[in-house]
């Protein structure tokens, strides 16, 4: 990993974050097969950012259990 350029390391870190998001979404879908994609999105937001940030960012939508 030390031989990678800084830009490549950041690219891989961003990709790892995107992968974690998708993995979290897949877990929510598996546990809650009746959820809409919007509910999955909001459940992942709550997992990643917590209740306070999720309420601030999406104030018109209810908190969704993951």
């Amino acid at each position, binding site marked *: *990993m030390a031989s990678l350029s*800084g830009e490549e*390391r*950041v690219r891989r*870190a*961003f990709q790892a974050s995107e992968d*974690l998001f998708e993995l979290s979404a897949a877990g929510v879908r598996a546990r809650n097969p009746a959820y809409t994609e919007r509910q999955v*999105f909001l459940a992942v937001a709550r997992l990643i*950012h917590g209740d306070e940030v999720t309420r601030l*960012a999406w104030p018109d939508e209810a908190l969704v259990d993951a």
Partner: protein
Amino acid sequence: MVSGSVASTFHGEIRQTQDVDLVIESTAHPEALHRAFSAGFYTPPVDSIRTELTARGMFNVIDLESQWKADLIVCKDRPFSREEFRRRQPATLAGVDVHLVTVEDSILSKLEWALATGSDRQRRDIAGMLHSGHDRIDYGYLDRWAPDLGVQGLLLEIRSAVEAED
């Protein structure tokens, strides 16, 4: 200026993150900042941004589609923070031209965080930067600022551990 875990990944070892830390000048205009993030982002009200700029605090913006969060941290009014900001370097991240904190200043900032929070993650980030960048780090600069920031003991401890591993 990009700081935090994105900068430590650039200078050291890869770490997953959902946040991007951006250090901004206190002279930034709150209305302009609010406008810059108005479409597609959660942004605090202009008055909150103004308050944080005055207090040299911080606020968040969130991309409502991707859920990426940026912590906008107002540059502190102290010699180290002014020097850290002055020394920022150009870089390209994900195809975007940005300014990035230097490896030395990233290490010093994370030493402060590690000391304040006891965070193992910060210590690992510091070790990663010391390990990956050992041949291009200005150790004289680290040794000059570490006493001012009260982190010389922790710097010595982590540096010794990294050198023992290498």
